[in-house]
């Protein structure tokens, strides 16, 4: 495999599937500006940029190097903090961080600088919402963020960024990365551990058939933790994040088809266009780095009871397509989740894509997430709702919750109760009684069972209240709202 590391081309022969980009940078390349704070993609101290060739050309995205697996970087451009200051001159973001006292202990600082740099490459004139969103995946324990936000605003005012080497060098880097993509399957090994990068989706299915029991990795935002925290062996590993076919998005008349490899960040554009009720919710999945890495298909395939994407997809009536050497199989997404940690994915199958019906104009949709911390937190409960109302009466209901059972699950008793009821607050409140028939949540560190019940019920009332008067029922939240 080959990739660009700042200005250098790196070619590696011995790469294991568990090797992380962060360990490579710090231990092999000895670039020690990138720090390890948590080794689970939550603190952002290890933030670097990865440039990849996409349908939109070369795009740079922030990622967490601690859980980004090295093998997935074939034909990518890795940009670290060491790449920013040129000829003894600080980059505008760095200068602003100095001028506004944005660093105290300095340990989170390289990651913060990279997140802000990534933001400005993508959004040269960000507002405060965009700055806070870009920093959702970066923890700072010293400054209280206020000086960092001041620095970010100041850096955004600095127009010298047009001369930025990543902008100026775009064509040259594109050419270098294209030259690295030879369209062949890549097989890497280290100490008997195997990493396989199929040449295409068809090849991926073949590789999977040839390699029973292989771990499939797209964004590694979950598998990365198996490696860094559990030290679980994942070999042989099939990497699929680079496959163009899985990045495909089709905007049809009745439904949107999303390739399983589409990241949360790319999906955000589809959300804004077709599912605006989900925009704020979507922006609260992980931090920006995780949204850049993690995929919708991965979140589904992984089957977590607290994944944020299944409830709204189930409420919308999405179907999942599974591909194997035998062909394609489709099933409603809710049926894919069988039990805790068990999904209806057969040996040799890969989650290929999701088909999401567009909600019609006569439909009322909502999705809510409640977590201890508003951003970059795992849900205590998330709920998604889709109602049809005709002449003041509910004629159809699809309701799905996460965090309330061992799998993301529909609340069918609630649905049954509501169909035929008047569209009013009292009915929604009464329907809450049926939540207990459907779901028995547990008590853990995120929430007690009692609290989960209360908010699952209150979400039903909120759907109605918010539909009547959004301003009066929601916190003056920032961002997409």
């Amino acid at each position, binding site marked *: 495999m080959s990739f660009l590391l700042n200005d250098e081309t790196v070619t590696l022969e011995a790469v294991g599937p568990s090797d992380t980009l962060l360990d490579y940078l710090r231990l092999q390349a000895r670039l020690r500006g*990138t720090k390890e704070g948590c080794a689970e993609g939550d603190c952002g101290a290890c933030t670097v940029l990865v440039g990849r060739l996409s349908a939109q050309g070369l795009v740079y995205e922030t990622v967490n190097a601690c859980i980004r697996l090295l093998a997935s970087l074939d034909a990518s451009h890795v940009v670290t903090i060491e790449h920013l200051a040129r000829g003894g001159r600080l980059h505008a973001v*760095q200068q602003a961080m*100095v001028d506004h006292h944005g660093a105290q202990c300095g340990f989170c600082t390289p990651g913060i600088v990279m997140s802000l740099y990534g933001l400005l490459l993508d959004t040269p004139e960000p507002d405060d919402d965009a700055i806070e969103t870009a920093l959702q995946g970066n923890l700072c324990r010293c400054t209280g*963020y206020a000086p960092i936000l001041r620095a970010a605003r100041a850096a955004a005012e600095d127009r010298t960024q047009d001369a930025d080497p990543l902008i100026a060098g775009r064509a040259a880097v594109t050419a270098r990365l294209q030259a690295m993509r030879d369209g062949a399957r890549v097989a890497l090994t280290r100490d008997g551990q195997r990493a396989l990068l199929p040449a295409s989706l068809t090849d991926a299915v073949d590789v999977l058939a040839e390699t029973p029991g292989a771990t499939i990795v797209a964004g590694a935002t979950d598998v990365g933790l198996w490696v860094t925290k559990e030290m679980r062996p994942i070999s042989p590993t099939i990497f699929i994040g680079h496959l163009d076919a899985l990045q495909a998005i089709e905007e049809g008349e009745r439904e949107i088809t999303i390739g399983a490899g589409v990241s949360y960040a790319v999906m955000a554009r589809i959300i804004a266009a077709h599912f605006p009720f989900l925009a704020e919710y979507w922006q609260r999945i992980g931090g920006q780095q995780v949204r850049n890495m993690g995929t919708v298909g991965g979140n589904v395939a992984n089957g977590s009871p607290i994944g944020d994407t299944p409830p709204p997809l189930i409420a919308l009536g999405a179907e999942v397509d599974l591909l194997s050497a035998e062909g394609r199989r489709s099933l409603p997404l809710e049926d894919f989740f069988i039990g805790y940690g068990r999904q209806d994915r057969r040996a040799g199958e890969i989650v290929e894509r999701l088909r999401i019906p567009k909600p019609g104009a006569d439909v009322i949709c909502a999705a809510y997430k409640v977590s201890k911390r508003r951003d970059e937190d795992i849900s205590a409960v998330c709920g998604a709702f889709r109602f049809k109302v005709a002449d003041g009466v509910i004629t159809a209901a699809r309701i799905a919750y996460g965090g309330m059972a061992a799998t993301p699950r529909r609340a069918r008793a609630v649905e049954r109760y509501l169909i035929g009821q008047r569209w009013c607050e009292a009915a929604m409140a009464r329907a809450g009684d049926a939540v207990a028939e459907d779901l028995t949540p547990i008590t853990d*560190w995120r929430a007690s069972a009692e609290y989960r019940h*209360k908010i699952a019920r209150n979400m039903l009332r909120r759907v109605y209240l918010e539909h009547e008067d959004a301003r009066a029922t929601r916190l003056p939240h920032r961002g997409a709202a």
Partner: protein
Amino acid sequence: MNRETPQPTDAPAIPLGRARRATPHDSAEKHVTGTAVYIDDMAEPAGTLHACLGLSDRAHAEILSIDLDAVATSPGVVGVLTATDIPGENDVSPTGKHDDPVFAEDRVLFHGQPMFAVIAETREAARRAVAKAKIGYRDHDPITDIAAAEAAGGDLVTDPLTLSRGDAAAAIAAAPRRLDGTMTIGGQDHFYLEGHIALAIPGEDDDVTVHSSTQHPSEVQHMVGHVLGVPSNAVTVEVRRMGGAFGGKETQSNLFAAVAALAAKRWGRAVKIRPDRDDDMIATGKRHDFQVSYAVGYDDTGRIHGVEATYAARCGFSADLSGPVTDRALFHADNCYHYPAVRLSSRPLRTNTVSNTAFRGFGGPQGMLGAERMIEEIAYALGRDPLEVRKANFYAPGRDLTPYHQRVEDCVIARIVAELEQSADYQARRTAIIEANRESRIIRRGIALTPVKFGISFTATWYNQAGALVHVYRDGSIHLNHGGTEMGQGLNIKVARVLADAFGVGLEAVKITATSTGKVPNTSATAASSGSDLNGMAAADAARQIIDRLRAFAVEHYGVSADEVAFERGKVWLGSERMAFGALIDAAYLARVQLSAAGFYKTPEIHWDRAAGKGKPFYYYAYGAAVSEVAVDTLTGEYQVERVDILHDVGRSLNPAIDLGQIEGGFVQGMGWLTTEELWWDDEGRLRTHAPSTYKIPLASDVPRDFRVRLADWSENTKPTIRRSKAVGEPPFMLAISVLEALSMAVASVSDYRECPRLDTPATPERVLMAVERLRAGG
């Protein structure tokens, strides 16, 4: 003579000089370019080995067997260490209680207690090997919280403290009104971004050098010597900078340094130990959880007549710093309020949890939170704004004696609160919020103004000393070393500025060097907000000695009078002549003038008799106040802090930019403690919030968009501290109590403010919603 203006009792040790310069952190450019070197970034000596700790997976058990055969034969493993491999004492107890083993021997007392260490060629090999240990246990029931500890008889890790003045019980009984209550206060993980780390390099004889991420190099030195069985002079501990500490590296670094040193001497190779974040959070101490039980007698004006309170703390399995932490809780159980009669007791309880330790404020925040809860309760009982009750009880002339019998002589809280109340438009906003809450069904708002008074000095009086070592080299460049450590707080730039101004040179002439036990001995922890007070003065003392010698030399050599010698802008004035600083230095060298000095400082006036509960433990107080406004969603308990106004007293600021950073950062850290940061133990005594995925510190988007912080620019320390500044590290942390009380007000609105919601902390969305529902249901 004007008695109203406090006059300094001593002349300042050095001229006031040019303070108030917003110089960036000395390492700012290195921070932003990633070139600042933390211990894990240092070039490792060839052959460096890596250690990983084996942690217990039981909270309370006898160890029946430790089988490390599979560990020792795991690929890359060089060896293992257990208690039997320790040549000195198996103990890193900072207070000499011998209750803090490096490796557990016959029993484990909390889940995550180190039992052994693996030493391997790589960190990964060491981590993989640890998982192969086979430990046989006989389980006992763990006692994991305060209630269980009290129920089991209330075993204490250290002697409790009682502070008493007057007859509190009688005063409460005689008061027109009385209320009783209990508040549960959660702990807090430090979540320094750089976790614990030590790199030990063996030397000849018994020598070892340890690079340790520690706030207390001298203690690490002492502990490493104690564990290795060698004198302190064999051990050198160095720290250039830490990636955050907040008290979490005051004593908790001892164990890691000891293990690295032990292995380094055993195998004769450099050894690094850097635990994974989860292990760091599981195995190291945190802020103490408290349960405060109080009875307060008061009258219809809201004035307090008497207070009785017990502060029970979850200390964990050993004493660590729990004695001084629970003491400081009592020292702050008055906050800004005069209690005419008072009795306060601490209960430092032993539990089967990690041994809790220092954390910014050191018990003070919990003490103060109890005081503010009493004020809040009185206000709700009387149907008044809590701010009125606060003002009715502020320390004032004639009402100035604390529960520890120290007089509050420098109190500026009334002025701070009055100014903030005005500038934040508190009254009008409060009225508008109460009005708006009547109309708003779901979203409710709250606002609160809370004050802070924080005592400055270590209550262990002997800690209030510091040293510095200053060299001036022949070329005029200056080497600065002092006993304080840099953890991001900007100590070094403050001290460097003091030194540069003393010599009349630019900051670029002063080299800041790593803290080393070989340069300044017997230092105190950089803690208790004392760093610049103590080390700034010590450096000034060193500078004064050298300048005195230079001045004497100039008088003799150039024939000027002493008062004609002045050091300014890199030049030395000799009457009407001037010469470059470097030229004078070179001339002084040739004349055999000593150009190096060890400076020293000890805080005057303070004393403390713990047995009697009387004395003057604090040299002075730092003050501040904050107004916070919040919005609460009463369907889910979620909330948002919308606006915060702060007015804080740092005396004459040594560096307004650094001080502002401490205030903003301290406030947000305090807000995290009181809102989303929840430590959650399961029934088996396992901490389940042990990583940033489960333990939620504030993010940029949690910070109020409207965040107005001002320094009380009229303030000046009445004591002759360094340039009349005040300590700033800890006091702002407690300004965040205003957020909790604003949440409380928003909750109280659902029952028309008739009832104090008694929110426990952290006030997670869950606790807020539960309080809303409890109040709606009628209590």
